[in-house]
């Protein structure tokens, strides 16, 4: 039987990779995760959270670990930070990454962190993001080759840019990488993760980021996806927040063939505030499937989710967000605003905000709308002499305004806008607009 006909080829190849790995200090937790992953198998459309994203073709392809590689690709976000940290095929480059400009920031490779204190790291891994529906995070725990462990112990002024790139000349390469960020009590940092690469090969990227905010900590986190049109990317982001912590999170989907981006947030103590912004751009035949799940596990917690989806060509964009307010909590507030804009008759957008409220005293709101460009707005601009293509682009841009203006690093916003504009018609006019 050829590999192409083996419908479980991917699963078998992950299992083989697992057996072939040299053991490390966290072998037990990896084994437990692998067992659970194998028992669950790959998600299928029968799994509620995967019904829009069919992985049958992927399931039939065997994958092999991407080898260490040296080229470091330049990120178009490089301008925001003097010393970006590069992670190529899941491994930091150089192997002992460092940023010495700020004593409140310490960075080591996950490999080093495992070797130094395997028990602590193992305890840090079992995560809220590893639900059945997000089983790629389980596979990540079993197979991540390396990554970063970032500790923030004070107020870090300059953003930390982590550039993840997939560099391979094969069509079956898989990259499993992880980043852990711990922000200490009262500390503050901005972390930007940029995923890029692919080079025309059908690479699989399975990445997990865990972000923990101690009491009073604050963080702004970006994950920007701009891999090439052949990359399949599963991304799990887990955010746990202690009392009075503030988190602002931006998920920017601008690349890849298939991107599944999961965000699992948990507000564990009173006063925790979470804002997430999802800018999901469907272009060509891209599929973007974004799933947010926020749990209010304590009283007086606040979450706000803003999602803006654009779909052109034959792309498909899915945004599912779920907010759960646990029993016994009081004064939780949540708001979900999901808006979709269809730019072609063959594109599709599915948005589904959901609320699960088990407490009495809560204030929760949600809204979801999807439509085309408003013909009245378009006519108004045309009637003022503005070019049709320019007017359309201007309206698309205006649609994204809430999200773009939420970014507090001007350099990141500028670079993200540039990349976004490159995917839209009427780019010159938009550049003049900014």
């Amino acid at each position, binding site marked *: 039987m050829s590999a192409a006909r083996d419908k479980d080829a991917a699963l078998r190849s992950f299992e083989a990779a697992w057996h072939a790995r040299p053991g490390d200090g966290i072998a037990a937790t990896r084994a437990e995760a692998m067992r659970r992953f194998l028992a669950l198998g790959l998600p299928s459309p029968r799994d509620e959270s995967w019904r829009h994203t069919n992985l049958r073709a992927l399931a039939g392809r065997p994958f092999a670990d991407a080898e260490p590689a040296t080229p470091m690709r330049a990120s178009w976000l490089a301008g925001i930070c003097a010393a970006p940290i590069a992670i190529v095929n899941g491994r930091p480059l150089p192997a002992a990454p460092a940023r010495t400009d700020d004593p409140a920031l310490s960075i080591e490779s996950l490999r080093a962190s495992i070797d130094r204190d395997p028990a602590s790291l193992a305890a840090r891994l079992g995560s809220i993001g590893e639900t059945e529906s997000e089983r790629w995070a389980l596979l990540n725990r079993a197979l991540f080759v390396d990554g970063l462990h970032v500790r923030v112990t004070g107020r870090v002024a300059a953003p930390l840019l982590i550039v993840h790139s997939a560099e391979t000349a094969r069509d079956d390469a898989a990259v499993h990488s992880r980043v852990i960020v711990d922000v200490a009590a009262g500390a503050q940092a901005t972390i930007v993760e940029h995923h890029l690469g692919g080079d025309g090969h059908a690479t699989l990227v399975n990445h997990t980021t865990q972000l923990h905010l101690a009491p009073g900590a604050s963080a702004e986190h970006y994950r920007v996806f701009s891999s090439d049109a052949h990359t399949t990317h599963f991304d799990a982001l887990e955010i746990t927040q202690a009392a009075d912590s503030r988190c602002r999170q931006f998920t920017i989907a601008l690349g890849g063939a298939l991107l599944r981006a999961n965000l699992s947030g948990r507000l564990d103590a009173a006063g925790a505030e979470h804002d997430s912004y999802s800018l999901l751009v469907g272009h060509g035949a891209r599929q973007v499937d974004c799933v947010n799940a926020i749990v209010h596990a304590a009283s007086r917690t606040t979450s706000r989710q803003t999602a803006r989806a654009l779909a052109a060509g034959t792309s498909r964009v899915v945004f599912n967000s779920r907010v759960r307010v646990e029993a016994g909590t009081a004064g939780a507030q949540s708001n979900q605003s999901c808006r979709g804009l269809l730019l072609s008759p063959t594109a599709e957008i599915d948005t589904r905000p959901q609320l699960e409220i088990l407490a009495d005293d809560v204030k929760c709101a949600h809204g979801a709308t999807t439509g085309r460009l408003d013909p009245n707005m378009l006519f108004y*601009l045309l009637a003022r002499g503005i070019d049709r293509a320019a007017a359309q682009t201007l309206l698309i841009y205006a649609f994204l305004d809430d999200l773009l203006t939420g970014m507090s690093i001007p350099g990141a916003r500028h670079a993200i806008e540039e990349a976004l504009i490159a995917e839209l018609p009427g780019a010159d*006019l938009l550049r003049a607009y900014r």
Partner: protein
Amino acid sequence: MLKISQLRANVVGRNILKGVDLEIGAGEVHAIMGPNGSGKSTLVQVLAGREDYEITGGSVSFDGADLLAMPPEERARAGLFLGFQYPVEIPGVNNAYLLKAALNAKRKAAGLAEVDAYEFLSLIKAKMKFMGMDESFLSRGVNEGFSGGEKKRNEILQMLVLEPRLALLDETDSGLDIDALKVVAKGVNSLRAAERSIVLVTHYQRLLDYVEPDRVHVFADGRILKSGDKTLAHELEARGYDWLREERVA
């Protein structure tokens, strides 16, 4: 300047304009009055190029060109301006940008260079002052959160900046208090010039107390029923529209 001949148009399959004939010379101010639903707004929207309205017959020439063959943006650049009855709110696009983009589109069509940023700002500020508008409007979204009166002032401001050859003002006076009405009228009057024509669509004679028309037309049932000088407006105010219909039937 503008010659409309036997113009017919449908809106969502319904015949609204039923043979409109109207000629407007350079420098003239015309008022079009008429009851609700008579087709006045449809007429100006058709002239501005609204695409979901279907032209079923007739012709319109604007400065000798076939207006109906031009897309809306080209009509605007050729000097046609529509002041909207219901100005659209466009959150995320700011007023200053819209004004600048519109002015530059017109300048480009006329073979002129883009307006200098400093010059533009002083021009806008002067016009806003003239219209009694706060400068904070510039950085706000187009018509976003504006009151009815602010929206109408903003339409006039755009007109003052663009200096059109032909301005079609669709019920610019409706919903305005007397002070706002005077400001709007001041804006319109300031644009009266030998080379410019203005069409005021209105329900009421009130605006015409401040902007004196050269001609008044009564619009009913999709066409012009009667035309006259400004005294016709007073007659309408006193007698309503029904007598005209009866006169026509008789």
